[in-house]
């Protein structure tokens, strides 16, 4: 699974997406797995409760299931408008 990262997370990762295999079962597990393999800055950012996860373009909570084929993205709080 290619997990997309946006804005400051993308900048911290130095990449627009991160490859994750095998696919963990939940957003929480996915977040944990990416954080474990990330730089300290990216890990800290991912562990911030204000960082959102979208599954198939909808914001979801940490308990939400994840499956192969889902489109998943992490991003910081919105600052548009």
């Amino acid at each position: 699974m290619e997990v997309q990262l946006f804005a400051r997370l993308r900048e911290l990762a130095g990449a627009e997406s991160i490859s994750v295999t095998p696919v963990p079962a939940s957003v929480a597990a996915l977040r944990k797995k990416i954080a474990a393999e990330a730089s300290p800055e990216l890990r800290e950012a991912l562990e911030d409760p204000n960082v959102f996860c979208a599954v198939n373009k909808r914001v979801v909570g940490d308990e939400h299931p994840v499956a192969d084929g889902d489109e998943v993205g992490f991003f910081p709080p919105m600052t548009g408008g």
Partner: protein
Amino acid sequence: MADLFTVEITDVPLDVPARTEAFPRQAQTTGAVVSFVGYVRGEGIQAMALEHYPGMTESSIRDTMDSAARRWPVQAASVVHRVGTLSPGDPIVWVAVASAHRAAAFSACDFIMDYLKVSAPLWKREQSLDGSWSWTEAKSADEDRAERWGWQKQGRVSA
């Protein structure tokens, strides 16, 4: 006939008078159009850059417009949001709402902006006068305004 509910994310400068001109009204029934334009303020910054989540940003704003249309009798609504690099004075976002009466048009336009601020995946960076770029921090005042309409903050643990 023009689509009455539209969302556009664009890296082309936002021509507000042209958008105003093209906004679809209904000659027989539209009594009020309220519009909002947000501009880049120039205090201490020389540029702003905006990025989005293609597809999700549009669907999120579309959801917000649909919510507005369920709450108030909205006849037409348009949102155009800039991405890319902007200069002080440039329009960032334009929102227009048509209704039979002004109360609904004011409320729906205000609502759409408040929801857009806290729920549409868009992120700003600002370039200060010394040339350095930094990400804009989300403002709790924006969350407070969204909560007026019953919005609830989402995060790691969803409701």
